[in-house]
């Protein structure tokens, strides 16, 4: 319980830091924050209104307090191009990104676990080296390039999958492109963990008791080898979001990543900062959930009442 509380407090501190960082980038570094908010073509009158609204004449801590106050009320600012509230733009795009990211996560977790288990149970000595090399090779592929290769071979040449668009069938290629890096990573972790778990006492005991191999591997070994994956999922989530930006651009997927890229091209700073801030909040949130879930499933933490 205390450990959970500690993690929650440190997440709050990180949240505070995240807002300070986005505040500094959006309002302290630019020479004229009003122009950043209003866009390069704003007239002096609009600029004066925005300056008053942001309280740019007040000290920085006061400006920051107002910034956080507005964030707490769901006010992430407005896109200066469309005048649409940033929160609405994010809400529109979030489902597509969540869809893509969840499918990719499922693919990489299932693929990684399957490959990791398979290689860990092999007895040939070269298998470790082969696994390491293959996973390093997979980790070295840029997701956007892999996406284009899949698009060319499976989409254009073989016509198995559509070249673009949004839907259940359309998610396959982008999700696979996004998933490979994670799958390679998980495969290596499962491989290493399963190897060390299999060498431990309790597995030998389970075997000596005469339990079937299925039970030994499935119930005792695998469960212990998979636990760290949950933490890994949280640690890797920020990387997944980076991959989302590139994959969505390749496949023209109508999600958050493309929103951010469009915002950068339009120099729409409020929209960029809103998206960046939102994704950081998402990362922190996912990590809190992962911590809680880990506390629930790991008997070493679950059964200790502190």
């Amino acid at each position, binding site marked *: 319980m205390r450990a959970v509380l500690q993690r929650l407090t*440190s997440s709050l*501190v*990180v949240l505070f*830091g*995240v807002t*300070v*960082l986005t505040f500094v*980038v959006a309002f302290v*570094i*630019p020479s004229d924050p009003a122009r950043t908010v209003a866009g390069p073509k704003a007239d002096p009158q609009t600029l004066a209104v925005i300056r008053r609204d942001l309280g740019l004449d007040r000290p920085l801590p006061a400006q920051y307090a107002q910034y956080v106050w507005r964030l707490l009320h769901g006010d992430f600012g407005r896109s200066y191009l469309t005048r649409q509230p940033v929160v609405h733009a994010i809400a529109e795009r979030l489902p597509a990104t969540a869809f893509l990211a969840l499918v990719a996560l499922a693919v990489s977790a299932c693929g990684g676990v399957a490959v990791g288990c398979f290689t860990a149970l092999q007895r040939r*000595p*070269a298998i*470790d*080296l082969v696994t*390491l*090399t293959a996973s*390093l*090779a997979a*980790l*070295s*592929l*840029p997701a*956007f*390039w892999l996406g*284009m*290769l899949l*698009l*060319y071979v499976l989409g*254009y040449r073989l016509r198995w999958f559509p070249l673009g668009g949004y839907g259940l069938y359309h998610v396959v290629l982008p999700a696979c492109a996004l998933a490979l890096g994670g799958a390679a990573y998980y495969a290596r972790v499962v491989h290493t963990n399963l190897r060390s778990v299999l060498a431990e006492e309790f597995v030998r005991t389970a075997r000596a008791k005469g339990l079937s191999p299925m039970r030994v591997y499935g119930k005792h070994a695998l469960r212990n080898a998979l636990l760290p994956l949950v933490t890994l999922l949280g640690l890797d989530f*920020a*990387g*997944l*979001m*980076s991959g*989302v*930006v*590139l994959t969505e*651009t*390749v496949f023209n997927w109508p999600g958050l990543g493309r929103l*951010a*890229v469009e*915002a*950068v*091209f339009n*120099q729409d*700073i409020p929209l*960029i*900062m809103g*998206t*960046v801030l939102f*994704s*950081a909040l998402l*990362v*922190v949130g996912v990590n809190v959930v992962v911590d809680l879930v880990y506390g629930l499933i790991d008997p070493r933490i679950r059964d200790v009442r502190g």
Partner: protein
Amino acid sequence: MGMEAAAARRQEVLGWVGGAMVLALAVVAVVAPWAAPFDPLAAVADSIGEPFAPDATYWLGTDELGRDLLSRLLYGARVSLLVAAVATTLSVGIGVTVGLCAGYFGGWTDVVLMRITDVVLAFPALLLAMALAALFEPGLSALFVVIAVVSWTAVARAVRSEVLSLRTRDFVIAAQALGASPLRAVVRHVLPNVVPTVLVMAALSTSGTVLLDAGLSYLGLGVPVPTPSWGRMISDSQTYYRIAPWLMVFPGVAIVYAVAGFNLLGYGLAARFQRRTGR
């Protein structure tokens, strides 16, 4: 033990392979002006809008503007390696400083520095880099800073945990007892012992910076055109990928080669240091 040592030795072989790959890439980057068959920026073939496939004259084909792909790839190696080298040096510099201070001084310094690290880690690296790139004038120096700012965290964490275990070792305590200033204790006694970790992390984070640079150039936020960069070549090829797939295949192969080289080098170095110190 015997099996583990054998496995470590096999991993070291991978390191040698990675080292050779990186070395070859560096040589290519240096000799690009002499090795490139054509001017990378000039329209040397009459292939505007209709890229030529690879042939005897243009080994890797030409792009939609009639430029020779091989020459552009070779020059692209220069840009990629330059960005990787400078950005990694900056980010390793930041990471080592933060990690040394946090680990050696401990207490509040450690808490504050590690929370800052957590904050930077909370941002998806590419998104934060995009936001920063949007605020700066596009150019090489902006690119160096942007990449360094988002990628120092792993080095900082690794160095910190290394220093934490070194801090209580006899030779450091002896130096402190003999009246060495904190700066002297850190630079003379702690720093030399974290060099192996720093080298491993530097190799691994170079692969990260190459990927990040490729991603940013793919999004059009890398080195400004017309300087050839691998990521940009891939995004430019996207319009033509059906009729000219070689335009996207070769730059991608170049990126994978570079990233894999640095990754292998990093793992090889890690295995070697592990065997040497017997940990």
